[in-house]
């Protein structure tokens, strides 16, 4: 990840002087290619979801009633807002406003915590109902419902791991901004971290209607 943030064109190797000639577009290109792989990774899961939903339409609807629409909606808004503060932090550093950038970036990370907190409440309430992979309550239900909740835990879980990864990256960026390693002249690292955060947001934008809005 760190490398994506700043390759050096014609980088010199061992012992020779490096040209101080950074290729911003190249760094962004590398990041975008990485994002495409993430996109394809989740596309595989969405494919599985759509196939099973096609096979078990009624059961998916029935199971979908049991997810927390309100919590899902609130979490969508939290994540969208965190995306806003993310771009605002970049806009701030572009204008040389370090502390505004730090504020927005911290807010973004905080929003990540809020998102995970709500997710925790949501999962615990499902688990309290006895609905979790391999649980007797779930296994007593139809195949379609088992698959729905299997996918629910897998996809939101994997997304949650991406949120955590994004927060760790952003925390590093926060340190770099504080140390002026990221500044008005050189903020490609922050931009690339932001791209990753937005991708996580986009995946949620699709998870939301598929798991929380089938009524």
């Amino acid at each position, binding site marked *: 990840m760190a490398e994506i943030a700043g390759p050096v064109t014609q980088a010199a*190797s061992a012992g020779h002087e490096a040209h101080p000639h950074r290729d911003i577009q190249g760094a962004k290109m590398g990041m975008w*290619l990485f994002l495409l792989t993430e996109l394809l990774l989740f596309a595989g899961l969405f494919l599985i979801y759509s196939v099973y939903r096609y096979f078990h339409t009624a059961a998916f609807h029935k199971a979908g009633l049991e997810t927390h629409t309100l919590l899902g909606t609130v979490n969508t808004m939290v994540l969208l807002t965190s995306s806003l503060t993310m771009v605002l932090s970049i806009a701030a550093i572009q204008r040389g406003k370090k502390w505004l950038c730090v504020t927005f970036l911290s807010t973004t990370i905080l929003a990540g915590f809020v998102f995970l907190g709500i997710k925790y409440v949501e999962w615990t309430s499902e688990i309290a109902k006895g609905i979790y992979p391999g649980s007797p309550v779930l296994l007593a239900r*139809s195949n379609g419902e088992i698959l729905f909740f299997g996918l629910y835990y*897998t996809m939101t879980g994997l997304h949650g791991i991406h949120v955590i990864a994004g927060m760790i990256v952003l925390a590093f960026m926060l340190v770099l901004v504080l140390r002026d390693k990221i500044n008005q002249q050189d903020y490609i690292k922050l931009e690339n971290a932001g791209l990753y955060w937005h991708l996580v947001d986009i995946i949620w934008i699709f998870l939301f209607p598929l798991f929380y809005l089938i009524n």
Partner: protein
Amino acid sequence: MSDVAFAAGGAPHGHSSNGGAHSYLENTGKRKGILSWILSTDHKRIGILYLISIFSFFAVGVVLGVLMRLEMLVPGPTGKIFNAQEYNALFTLHGVIMVFLFVVPGIPATLGNFFLPIQIGAKDVAFPRLNLLSWYLYITGAAIILVSLFMHGLPDTGWTFYVPYSIRTGTDVTTAVFGVFVLGFSSILTGMNFLTTIHRMRAPGMSWFKMPLFVWALYATAWIQVIATPVLAITLLLIIIERVFSVGIFDPAKGGDPVLYQHMFWVYSHPAVYIMILPPMGVVSEIVSTFSHRTVFGYKAVAISSLAIAFIGYLVWGHHMFVAGETETAQFAFSLLTFLVAIPSGIKVFNWVATMYKGSIDLQPPFLFLMAFIMLFAIGGLTGLFLGSVATDVHLTGTYFVVGHFHYIIFGGAVFIFFGALHYWFPKMFGRMYNKKAANISLGFLFVGFNMLYFPMLLLGYEGMPRRYFSYLPQYETLQHVSMVGSWVLVIGLTIMFWNLIRGIRKGEKAPANPWGGTTLEWTIASPPPTENFEEIPVITHEPYYHPDAEMPEEHAVPVAK
């Protein structure tokens, strides 16, 4: 002839002096010994690291393969060398190691790493540290797979990890699958790195259609690595999730659909065949031009056909599943689409042949490897037709015929050219020359051994011998024995070849900068290349295969006098 070509065509880009620059093999940095290698971000050193590690695993895979053949010493269920479970582990490990640790990283990670930056006139790849990281991920993934061997019994699923067996078997599939998952990351990083490098770091004047065809092939390959590998990653992750949490996604008892697993698996694994074969096709274009002393006929068509193969490679995965329970509609669609692959492949082959036509052909070892490749690949391609059409596939699938076909394509095609490429670029990489006579002898053994080993498999499969069985009926004995002896001849060939190459590194005679009369950029710099590749970045004015002594209008072309 090659000397003349060297004098005339060796420096068409006007840049061949290397002054007193240190070769990449000499240590110039702070680190000493092995650390100067395993911590180096020099693409050439990373290429060599890959070369060593990949061929180490190749050796392991070869041993496992020979053991599998040895099992066929005696027909019937008794008096065997291995029992059924051991045989299952053998073919699983042979497949996993050969596919994921050898051919998939194969040419891109080794020779691609070494020559891609040089061929486009760059000093390194776009992300040198990421490049080193991808080697470490490769080693980590390989280590994890090795660990799986000593945990709860050898994986016995076959390299395809088909569900539901892979989620039920008691052997340590979880660890092995996780190892492959990590290897996938290595592959993705290499792909990303190459794409960015090709887009951003071409030397001034090197437009897309002035790139060498090897670079074109690596470009198409890198796209497959970036776009297809994540689908495999998620599929493998789901196996792990299934085994650990039993969520039911691929468990038929809970409504999971094993056919869907096969879709997901082949969405990656068919394009992966093109990860294996596209880079060799790029090498063929290089070799064919250099040793025919002519520009590649239909250069643009060959370049575009790489992209076309990469694209069509995405449309055909269902032909692996004709008997797996997919619908007739899908069988029809996938069978039809499969035949489309023949178009860009045909474009390549015809243009290679046209390049040789009236060329001044120099029968050096790399070119002989190429001839072997064309014959073996043709057999592989033709047997593919039987498997691509549903009616014959239903009879042949799951037999030795598939095994034979696959090895003709991947071993006879990709790996023979991998060997050819090693012989082609060896003098550039190490600044020394191997013994050419020994190289030709090794090729003789390889070619004979290969055909003895795999042609009987085509016949056995046609007669109904199923793959992955540790035993067979007496009627197959003769062909099984021919095949077994073939595996020994093949090993003799491999031994001679590697002995000759390793000996060449230390004792071979010094090689000039351009021993073959090649025209691409790597031949304009010293052998072995200096650490920085180029003292100053070259400016490209010519097409990549400009042979000044052979350029004349097509209709007046006459063989160049020797």
